[in-house]
C-alpha cells in the first residue's frame, strides 16, 4: 500500500494522462497515486479514463479551481 505522487501541475491536457499511465505501470495493485491539478479538463479526463479502466478514483476540490485526485490501482 505505497503512496505515490506525480507532479502534473500546470501541464496541458494529454501529458498528465500519459504520465499517469506510465506511473501506473510501475505501481502494484492497491497502491495509491496522488495528483493535484488546476486544469479542469485534465482532472475530468483522468477521472473518466480511470473509471473506464476499472480503477478507483476520488476527485476533490481542495481550493478554488484546484483539484486533488486520489487514484487506487485495482488491477494490473
Amino acid at each position, binding site marked *: 500500500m505505497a503512496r505515490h505522487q506525480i507532479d502534473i501541475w*500546470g*501541464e*496541458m491536457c*494529454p*501529458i498528465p494522462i*500519459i504520465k499517469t499511465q506510465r506511473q501506473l505501470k510501475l505501481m502494484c495493485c492497491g497502491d495509491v497515486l496522488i495528483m493535484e491539478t488546476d486544469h479542469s479538463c485534465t482532472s475530468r479526463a483522468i477521472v473518466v479514463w480511470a473509471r473506464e479502466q476499472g480503477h478507483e478514483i476520488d476527485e476533490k476540490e481542495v481550493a*478554488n479551481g484546484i483539484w486533488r485526485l486520489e487514484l487506487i490501482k485495482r488491477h494490473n
Partner: protein
Amino acid sequence: MRNKVQIIYKGPWAYWVGAVVLAILNMIVLIVREMPWGITTNIEAWSVWLGSNMGLLHDEGITFKQLMLSDGTYLNMGVILGAFWGTLAASQARFRHMKNRKFVISALIGGLLMGYGARIASGCNIGLVLNGIASSSLSGWLFTIAVFIGVWLGSKILLRFLL
C-alpha cells in the same frame, strides 16, 4: 436534489449532455445569424485591423466601427465571457500559470500553425469540422481527415519534445 441543481452551475456535465446542448445552440446561431457559427474569420479581421493600425500592414479598409458591428466579434467575445462566467459561477476562477518556458514556445508555435492552417483552409474546428460537415459540404469531410492526420503528427512532436 441539491446535488442535481449544483451540477448545473458547478459541473462537470457528462460529455453527451454537452454535445446535445452544443448542437441545439449551434442551430440557434444558424437561425439567428442566417449563416453558421465561425471563429477564425473574425479573428483574422481583428488581427489585420490591429496590424494595419500598428503600421505593419498596409491598410485594408477595415474600420473599428465595422468590427464592433460584426456579429463574429460578439460570438467570440461571448464564448470567452461565457466560459469566465461558468468558472465564476462554480467559484473556480483563478489565473492558471503554465509549468515552464517550453510551453510558451509550444503555445506560440501551435497558435501560429493553427492560425495559418485555419485561414488557408478557410475554417477551423467549428467552421469546417462541425459546421462544414453539418452543412453536408465535402470540404468539411476533407478537412476532418486532414486534421486527424495532423493530430497524429502533432502527437509525435508532443511525445518527442514536451513530455
